[in-house]
């Protein structure tokens, strides 16, 4: 059994109003050193696969097909033994 930790964020070229709102909120709390905030989704999937390579291939396919929208989003993931 493998566990995939998937991160999906808006592409850096796309405006992220949630991130901007959080940035402003943090700044109003005195955190003035922030350059940028990006918000995204975190998805955890446990799956069966022959080996890690196969698990990674499957997860990559999931991200491309359903979990992210390549027009506006980037994804990254890490697969580990669950």
């Amino acid at each position, binding site marked *: 059994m493998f566990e995939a930790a998937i991160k999906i964020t808006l592409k850096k070229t796309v405006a992220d109003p*949630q991130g901007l709102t959080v940035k402003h909120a943090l700044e109003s709390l005195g955190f003035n050193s922030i350059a940028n905030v990006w918000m995204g989704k975190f998805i955890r999937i446990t799956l069966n696969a022959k080996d890690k390579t196969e698990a990674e291939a499957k997860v990559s396919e999931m991200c491309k097909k359903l979990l992210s*929208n390549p027009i506006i989003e980037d994804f990254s993931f890490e697969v580990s033994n669950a």
Partner: protein
Amino acid sequence: MKFGVVVFPGSNCDHDCYHVVKEVLKQPVEFIWHKETKLDNFDCLIIPGGFSYGDYLRCGAIARFSPIMEEVIKFANKGGLVIGICNGFQVLLEAGLLPGAMLRNKNLHFICKFVELKVENTDTPFSSEYKKGQIIRIPVAHNEGNYYIDEKGLAELKKNNQIVFRYVENPNGALDDIAGIVNKERNVLGMMPHPERSSEIELTSKDGFPIFESIRKWLKEHGKS
């Protein structure tokens, strides 16, 4: 002439679209359950608004993989008329029938109100009953109507005259004030505003009805009575 309204779990404007086609446009109309794998002699498909699959994950992302969508894509590719309203527009974007994507509204709130639209293109099966440049009053109701497309895509849309409706006062941050677009072939329309909510005078505006009337006329002219 037969209209079909596709119903996903979570669709909530399906009955409204059905009502307008049946009671106001007075044309035959049927609901199509999303698990259907065949389309039966439809001339125009409406993908209604709502929260298909709760809009969990991403608006329209899960609905796009419903069995019926394969058929909708085939139908569109053969030149059949498809109109996606609000969540339906989002589904069409996810399905790749229309270019671009939707982001959250700039103010991060759901917005429900009447807005003014400018009709940019009357040379489509959906907008022939308007005058070019006409200002119409139609409500929006969405959380994610902030249309996005990359520069190249936008240039394409403009070059091919695919932008059908623009907001007069942009409510959601949509790029280039885009409220509704067609595909290059002009048989698929996606729009965020709800024409079915402004097709009867009791609802304070009939400005959305010409869209349905345009479709009826186009179908009639193309031999569907």
